[in-house]
């Protein structure tokens, strides 16, 4: 399914707009990176996309259906979110935690059905965390936790995946692994939007990069095009010298 935002506007206070009319499109099979300096409205935009923050202007469309008119449950069946931080004091095992992703598919009494267990098993295997299934979520490491949350998002069986700085607590090895998983999910048909601060590693794994500044889109296109010296200077106020070494990797020197 295609998720489209048209002229989305939002502000926490009436006189301080955070999003000033954002238009973008997320297509199945593509990973889109949402880049930009702190406080430019990336996370706010992400939360507007699944209407957990209600946009004050514009429209959010899922294959031409208005997302703002949908119930939270129905939205969760299509759009899954991996938040920046998850409370760690949740008294659930990994399996129970992933089971929460099935909530949107349950009937009134919340009976687990065989289908749920199959989905959970697949998600566990997909994220390679079958061995953690019986452990307590609160006792996992940061990297393991992030995988559990991604597995929970997969258990929603949606078609759009929104990731909010998913790798901010991960070391470089886990970051690479996480990006590879996300890449694979996109290949399987997910439309992925990933908010990130990482302008070095993440661009190697994305199809489209969007650079946001102060509630507006500055540039949109391939990572090479978007992460130009002028754009980096305009967005972050940092002078960079960029040299491309391989096909998709690039190096930058900051002055």
């Amino acid at each position, binding site marked *: 399914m295609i998720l489209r935002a048209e002229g989305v506007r939002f502000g926490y206070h009436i006189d301080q707009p955070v999003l000033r009319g954002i238009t973008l499109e997320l297509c199945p099979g593509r990973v889109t990176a949402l880049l930009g300096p702190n406080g430019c409205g990336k996370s706010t935009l992400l939360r507007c996309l699944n209407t957990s923050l209600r946009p004050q202007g514009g429209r959010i469309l899922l294959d031409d259906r208005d997302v703002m008119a949908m119930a*939270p449950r129905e939205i969760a069946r299509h759009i*899954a979110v991996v938040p920046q931080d998850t409370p760690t004091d*949740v*008294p659930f095992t990994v399996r129970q935690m992933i089971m*929460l992703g099935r909530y949107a598919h*349950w009937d009134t*009494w919340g009976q687990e059905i065989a289908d749920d267990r199959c989905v959970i098993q697949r998600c566990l295997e997909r994220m390679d965390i079958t061995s953690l299934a019986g*452990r307590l979520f609160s006792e996992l490491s940061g990297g393991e936790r992030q995988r559990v949350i991604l597995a929970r998002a997969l258990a929603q069986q949606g078609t759009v995946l929104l990731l909010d700085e998913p790798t901010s607590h991960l070391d470089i090895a886990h970051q690479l692994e996480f990006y590879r998983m996300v890449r694979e999910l996109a290949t399987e048909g997910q439309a992925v939007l990933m908010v990130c601060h990482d302008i070095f590693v993440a661009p190697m794994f994305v199809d489209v990069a969007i650079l946001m500044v102060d509630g507006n889109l500055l540039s949109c296109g391939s990572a090479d095009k978007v992460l130009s010296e002028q754009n980096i200077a305009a967005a972050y106020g940092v002078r960079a010298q960029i040299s491309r070494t391989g096909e998709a990797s690039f190096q930058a020197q900051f002055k």
Partner: protein
Amino acid sequence: MSCRPHWISPRWMISALSLCLLVLAVTALMLGPAALSVRQVCQACCHAVRGQAEYDPVTRIVLTTRLPRILLAMTVGAGLAMSGLAAQTLLRNSLASPYVIGVSNGAAVGAVAAMFLVGKWIPFGAVPVLSAASGLMVTATVFLFAQRGRNFGHSLLLTGIAISAFCSALTAGALYLAGERLQTLVFWLMGGLWQATWSDVLIMLPLMSICLIGMLLLAPAMNVALAGQRSARDLGVNVRRLQSLLLFFLAVTTAVAVSRTGVIGFVGLIVPHLLRLTIGADHRGLVPASALGGALLLLTADTIARTAAAPVEIPVGILTALVGAPTFLWMLQYRAGGRAGV
């Protein structure tokens, strides 16, 4: 390193609690100033079913004195424990009790005010009604104030504490001015079931059942709510509706329970907390287990309260805390030995 939690299966726990409750209920029917045998109790029940209650003294003791009291203890205990669970989930804080949002202090103010008016303007029967109404009004006030805050759970807790403090100041003032009514007021505030009648049971039983069914329906959403307010919304829960419904169940059950039996502490805090440590946090098991556990705890406490120092009756609120607090500490220590609590 073994990190697997040592939880007991909820089904097993619910069966065990039901069995204990049944045994204890029959035992409680036998105990009292006139000790009865199992056979007498069974006969009395048979008589009651056949409608021959008036002539047999044993049947009358069982039916008019003991049975309503036992049923009231069970329903109030279950209601308080479920309200405690609702409060703990609503606030994502396992230290919350149904009283933290000001229901009990509100109900106390209403009751104390009503007792001052009794005899002058209103009949004695109006005390519980005024008390419950005032408890509900206070909760509604807390809810309206808290709704303006961005973090609903936090605002609810803070507003609740502030308004509770205000109400308890009013109650304390009333006690100070009470004069010869002081003992009645103190006795009421301590909580007890000695005035149990069938009309109390007929109010509490349906209320508790509605609360139980409502919370069973909300159980999956309550599970998701434990993952945090934002995540819950992302996973498809209508968070505001869940919070309002939980608060509604909590307020109605607690306000009515307090208006009938006074402030019985600790049941609402300890029962859901201990059960969460024993069977895990899945509300589909936790809701019925809490109801049973609360019923069991309050029935035990009340049976001890009326028999231990007979003919003097110990206020049951004192007992629940006296027995509950050490058990609670022991459990916390015991659990901390193996693994950290929740």
